[in-house]
């Protein structure tokens, strides 16, 4: 059970944050199809940052002394850098769709093509292979919170809550939850949030009340890019052992599906991403999944092909979209370039 919850969280939390990234862009009126690309880019930047800082030897002393607080700071720094560069990368999308009134679907597709190309071009030259890794050690030894950090011995038990939510977890997961809550409040309970959302519903009306629609759309898309970039790095850190290879396995697109399934609302999105995280977790580790802790690997013993489990998240997404499409309500003005002269 502990394993199941932890694994589900590892998949669900990046999904949740990236889905919120989609919400910020779409609520301001820009379809951000580039979530996948920005995630790939953010993952690369974060891993590159970790790699370079390690080579510079900044945190070597902390690592040698097992000073886990300093190492967590390092992790947060890497998250911040990938968020920053994700925001910068997304400016390509906002520039095309706000200033040049471009087709946002094509613009997003362009970014999705650009990110893996750029990332792989650089990785191949930097690392002479298609995967960029940490310079020394691995994600678990540098960034994972372990029970020894709280003074527990190797054979001591932490209790269910402790071993599920503290032992063998990443701080990034909880920071993501915090950011998710804060930004959801920002979007739904503040004046700024109301203004942003009005630009995605009726930009003409918003403009007539003195809101700068272009600026709001830039802000929405940049926040979106920052969240997606950070989500990409968190994904790479927690599920890919802090490596970047120009691929996040369709996670950005799954996040878009989560956003639509969650009806562009934070609470629904949180629930939807937990559901998808569960299926992603089953797909990734069905053979070693011991649901009720009795030593029986139920899903493995059913004898269903592993290909089926891997297909499951996408099948479920399609089915869920089919069932929820009738009551889904997208922001009205999304995808339509704002033109001041238009009535």
């Amino acid at each position, binding site marked *: 059970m502990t394993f199941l919850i932890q694994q589900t969280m590892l998949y669900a939390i990046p999904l949740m944050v990236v889905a919120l990234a989609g919400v910020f862009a779409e609520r301001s009126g820009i*379809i951000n*199809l580039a979530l996948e690309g920005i995630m790939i880019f953010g993952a690369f930047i974060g891993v590159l940052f970790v790699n370079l800082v390690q080579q510079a030897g900044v945190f070597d002393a902390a690592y040698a002394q097992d000073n886990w607080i300093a190492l967590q700071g390092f992790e947060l720094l890497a998250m911040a850098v990938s968020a920053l560069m994700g925001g910068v990368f997304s400016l*390509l999308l906002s520039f*095309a*769709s706000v200033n*040049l*009134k*471009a*087709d*946002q*679907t*094509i*613009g997003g*597709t*362009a*970014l999705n*093509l*650009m990110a*893996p*190309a*750029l990332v*792989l*071009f*650089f990785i*191949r*030259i930097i690392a002479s292979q298609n995967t960029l890794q940490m310079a020394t050690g691995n994600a678990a030894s540098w960034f994972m919170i372990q029970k020894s950090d709280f003074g527990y011995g190797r054979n001591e038990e932490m209790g269910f809550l402790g071993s599920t939510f503290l032992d063998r977890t990443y701080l990034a997961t909880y920071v993501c939850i915090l950011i998710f809550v804060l930004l959801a409040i920002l979007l739904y309970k503040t004046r700024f949030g109301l203004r942003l959302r009005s630009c995605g519903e009726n930009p003409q009306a918003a403009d007539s009340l003195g809101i700068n629609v272009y600026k709001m759309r830039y802000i929405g898309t940049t926040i979106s890019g920052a969240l997606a970039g950070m989500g990409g790095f968190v994904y790479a850190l927690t599920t890919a052992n802090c490596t970047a290879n120009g*691929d996040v*396995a*369709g996670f950005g*697109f799954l996040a*878009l*599906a989560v956003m*639509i399934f969650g009806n562009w609302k934070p609470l629904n999105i949180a629930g939807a991403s937990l559901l998808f995280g569960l299926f992603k977790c089953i797909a990734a580790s069905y053979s070693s999944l011991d649901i009720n802790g009795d030593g029986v690997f139920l899903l493995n013993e059913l004898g269903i*092909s592993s*290909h*089926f489990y*891997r*297909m499951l998240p*996408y*099948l479920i*997404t*399609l089915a869920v*979209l*089919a069932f929820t*499409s*009738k009551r*889904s309500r*997208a922001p009205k003005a*999304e*995808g*339509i*370039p704002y033109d001041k002269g238009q009535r």
Partner: protein
Amino acid sequence: MKGKVSKLWRREGAQSVAASLISILIGLAVGAVIILIMGLSNPDLGLGTVWEAVRLEFLGLFSTGRTATGALTFGFNPVSMGDMLFRATPLILTGLSVAVAYKTGLFNIGAPGQYLMGTAATLMLALGIPTQVVPAPLVWLIAFLGGALAGALWGCIPGLVKALLNINEVLACIMTNWIAANLVSWIFDGSQFRNLAESTKSAYIYKTSFNGVQTAKLGLDQLFPNSQVNGGILVAIVIAVLMYILMNKTTLGYQLKACGANRHASRYAGIADKRNIVLSMAIAGALAGAGAALYYLSGNTEFYWNTYQSLPDVGFNGIPVALLAVSNPIGVVFTGCFMSMLDVVGQQITNLTPYNEYITDIIVATIVYLSAFSLAIKLLLRGRRKRRLEEAEGGKSGPVDAPSAHAPATDLGRTGKGGGEG
């Protein structure tokens, strides 16, 4: 003479070609700049390698390797030329797939999935039907049609959910892509088609020539000796012409385009909008499936069946091929060849310089990015032309520049709502 040129210039088509050429040039320039930045920031690479890589980026198709002293040589390279035509074959068809869907208001990002399903059906038919019983050319035809049919059926899925449930086709296509990727691995996992004869190869399917089925060369191999080229490129060109006729000269094509322009207005005019949406996705899928069939029936290509981790690039590259051709089926033939030329260029860069083939992906992405606002580029061109005309004729601005007022409605405006219906 000058009057003729300016008349040609005023035509929509000429402006589209100019806008595409500008996109290509900017894309190549961006690639060159990135090579320059990389070369300067890395002391191991240096300016010499930058100059070589940039020359290859523009002229890689004519590269003939290095001399004994290490200088790059250029000239007619029949292998590169033939390989370019061979690789253009599936690209032209996936490009047509995206282009036809785009003309009907749908963004077919599902070409990779349709391509995979076409691959699976083609290989199973081409390898499964014994050529001792059925003559090989007939097997070729069956496998080709089977590939197209499988692609069509796979394309129907996003079409159906779009038409009946109003689900954004982009999302549905992406999901069907990944489902196809897993399904195809599942189909071939443990099947009799895996190449077990050559023990050095793991996770590959037999070449279709194993069963004696391969595309006829039609003399092209004499034109381009030692290359992979075959008659498939001619089939692709014929299909492109047929698509041009279907879209522009038939009632069905008109109905499909009308549905793309305004679904509700078409229904009001008595056109079955739901049927047409499904049909246009089916046609798009059939084209992508046919592309896969032509590629894998060549007899000298192998399919890596463990596809669940990544989708075939050929499918995604159909998007730039179509966008660069402004969705014109004839234009797709040329842009398809351009894209496969980039592929050859990337290979030359990888072989001859310390840089790698991903630089061509960057160029492609830049071109797609630019084509998102090709309208802005076109308006810019038109504006400059207008100004020059005004200067030449001394302020006598005639009816020439009238189109600029209602230009936005022409090509990109139609798809502006593409993703907005989720």
